[in-house]
C-alpha cells in the first residue's frame, strides 16, 4: 500500500490564557483540541473527516500543515517526519501538501489580482518551468476559468469562482496531498457539484491524496473512499466509507448519519436525536467522551475510555457497546 500521510497518536495542545483568572479558578492551563488521532491517507484516495464544529477537524488539518502546535504524536509524510513551520526556512515537503481554506474569498489576498495570487506559490518556491505569469494562466485554464479572470480582485469573484481559484492555487505546485477544509460550505447545490467534480477530475489526473473536512454527509457519501468521524478531538470511528454508511458501529456515527436532513418528504423516519450539548473541551468527560449524550452508555463508559476495536485498515471504532 502506498501510504502518503501517516498520523500517529496526534495531540494538539493550546495553552490557555494565563494570569490572575487562572490563579483564581481551577481552570486547566491548556486545552487539547486534537486528542490522540491516528490516520493513514494513501495516494489517489479521498478521506473525509466528519464531525460537528468544534470537534477539532480544522485544527487537525492545521497540524498536518505545521500551523498548529503538535504536543505529542507524529505526522509522517512519505515516511519522513514533517517538521513544524520555522520562519524563513522552506521545508521541501511543505509544497507537497496543499491546503484549501474554508472561506473562499477570505483566503485570497484582497489587494492582489487573481493572476498574482496564482503566481504566488511559484514565487515563494522559485519553481515552475516557465514564468509565474504563464503558470498562472495555465492554472486558470486547469480549473476552467477564462483568462480575463486573472485581472480580477478576490471581492469581484462569486463564491464558486473564488473556490476555483482556491483549488488552482492549492494545486499549483502539484502537491501529493490536498487538504480541503469545508470546500463546499456556503455554496449552492449546483455550484457545490461543480467544485467537487473539479476536485475529482484533478485527483484522477494527478493521483492526489485528498483529505476533505466537511459536515455535509451527502457529499461524503459520493466522494469519500474512507472516512473518520471526529468527536471532541478524537476519531470515534474510522474506515471504509461505504461500510460505515451501511453499518455504523459507534452510536455517535449512527446518530450523525441519521440526522442528515433529506429532500425526500417521505424519508426522515428512524432518526436518532441526541440529547444534551456537546461538552466543553475544557471539561472533557471521564471515560468515553460520548457517554454524556450516548443512548447506550453504561457504567463502564463513565470510567474507562474504550480501546480501538475492529480493523484499523477497514473499520475501527472506540466503543464498549458497539452496534451490530
Amino acid at each position, binding site marked *: 500500500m502506498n501510504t502518503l500521510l501517516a498520523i500517529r497518536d496526534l495531540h494538539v495542545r493550546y495553552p490557555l490564557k494565563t494570569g490572575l483568572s487562572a490563579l483564581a479558578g481551577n481552570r486547566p492551563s491548556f486545552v487539547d483540541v486534537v486528542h490522540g488521532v491516528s490516520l493513514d491517507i494513501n495516494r489517489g484516495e479521498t478521506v473525509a473527516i466528519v464531525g460537528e464544529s468544534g470537534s477539532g477537524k480544522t485544527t487537525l488539518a492545521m497540524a498536518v500543515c505545521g500551523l498548529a502546535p503538535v504536543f505529542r504524536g507524529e505526522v509522517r509524510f512519505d515516511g519522513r517526519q514533517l517538521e513544524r*513551520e520555522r520562519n524563513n526556512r522552506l521545508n521541501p515537503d511543505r509544497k507537497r501538501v496543499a491546503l484549501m481554506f474554508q472561506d473562499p474569498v477570505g483566503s485570497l489576498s484582497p489587494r492582489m489580482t487573481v493572476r498574482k495570487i496564482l503566481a504566488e506559490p511559484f514565487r515563494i518556491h522559485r519553481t515552475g518551468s516557465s514564468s509565474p505569469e504563464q503558470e498562472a494562466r495555465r492554472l486558470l485554464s486547469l480549473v476552467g476559468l477564462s483568462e480575463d479572470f486573472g485581472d480580477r480582485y478576490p471581492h469581484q469573484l462569486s463564491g464558486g469562482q473564488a473556490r476555483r481559484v482556491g483549488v488552482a492555487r492549492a494545486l499549483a505546485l502539484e502537491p501529493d496531498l490536498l487538504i480541503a477544509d469545508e470546500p463546499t460550505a456556503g455554496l449552492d447545490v449546483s455550484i457545490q457539484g461543480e467544485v467537487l467534480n473539479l476536485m475529482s477530475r484533478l485527483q484522477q489526473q494527478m493521483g492526489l491524496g485528498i483529505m476533505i473536512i466537511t459536515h455535509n454527509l451527502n457529499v461524503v457519501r459520493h466522494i469519500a473512499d474512507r472516512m473518520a468521524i471526529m468527536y471532541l478531538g478524537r476519531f470515534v470511528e474510522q474506515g471504509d466509507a461505504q461500510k460505515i454508511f451501511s453499518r455504523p458501529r459507534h452510536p455517535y456515527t449512527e446518530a450523525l448519519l441519521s440526522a442528515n436532513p433529506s429532500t425526500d418528504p417521505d424519508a426522515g423516519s428512524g432518526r436518532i436525536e441526541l440529547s444534551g450539548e456537546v461538552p466543553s473541551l475544557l471539561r472533557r468527560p471521564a471515560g468515553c467522551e460520548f457517554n454524556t449524550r450516548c443512548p447506550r452508555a453504561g457504567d463502564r463508559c463513565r470510567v474507562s475510555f474504550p480501546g480501538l476495536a475492529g480493523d484499523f485498515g477497514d473499520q475501527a471504532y472506540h466503543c464498549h457497546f458497539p452496534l451490530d
Partner: protein
Amino acid sequence: MSATAGTVYRIFAGLKKDPLGMAGFVLVSLIVFLAVFAAWLAPYDPLEVDVYNRLASPSFAHWLGTDQLGRDILSRVLYGGQVALRVSLLAISISMAVGLVLGMLAGFGPRWLDRVLVVAFDTVRSFPTIMFALAVVALTGPSLNTVIGVIIVTSIPVYARVVRTQTLALRERDFILAERAMGASTFRILRHHVLPNIIAPLFILASMDVPAVVGMEAGLSFLGLGVSPPTPSWGSILNDGYSYLRNSPWPIIAGGLPLIAVTLGFTFFGESLRDIFDPRLRRKDQ
C-alpha cells in the same frame, strides 16, 4: 502599474463628489507649489534688510508689508513654507517608515517583542512633546534638525501603533494563513500581503498629520527653539510680529494665514481620502 493608475483614478473620482475634499486638494497643491517655487516667486531676498522701510503696510512694492527689519514679508512667508514642508516631509516620511517597520514587527513578531515595543511606544508618548523638545534643545541648542529629530521620535509611536493594530487584525486572516501554509517567509508575507493592506490608512493618517507637524515646527520656532534666525519660518515670522503687534498687524496675519491654510487643506483632503478608501467610516450623509 495599473493598480497605481486605478488608485489615482479612484481618488479623483472620489474628490469630484466631495467639494470640500476638492477644495482641500486645491489648497494643498497651491501650498506645495508656492513653497517649491519660492525662489522664483519671491519678489525679494527674504534676508535682505531695508532699515528705511520698516514695518511698512502692504503696498505694490511689498504685498504683505515688511517686518521690523524691513524684510519683505511675502518672501519670508514663501521661504517659510519651504521650511515647513521640508520639516513635515522629512519628519513624517522617516517616522512613517520607522513606525511601519516597528509596528509590523510588533504585530507579526514573537509576543515578547510586541510587549517590549509597546512599552517603548507608551514611554515615548507619555512625555508631552513640548517638554521633550525643551529638554532636547537644552542639551543640543536650537536648530532645524533638532526640530525634525524631536518630531520623528514622538511621531514614530503614533504610526507604529496604527500599523501594529492593523497587522494584528490581518495576522489571523485566512489569506495570511494560506501564505504560511504555502511556506512563504515572514518577510514576504509582510511585504506582499500585510503592507498593501495597511498602507492606505497610513497615508491618510500622514496627510492629516501634516498640519500638526507644521504647527509643531512653527510653535518651536516661535519659542525660539526651532530654526535659528534669520532663516524665515512661519513661527519666527509670528514671533517677530508679536512684539510689534500694536504698530503693525501684518506680520501676524501673514504668518498665521498659511498655518490656517495648511490645517484646513490637509484636513479636508485627508478626510476625503479616508472616505474614499474606507467607506465604512464615511460621514453620515447619503
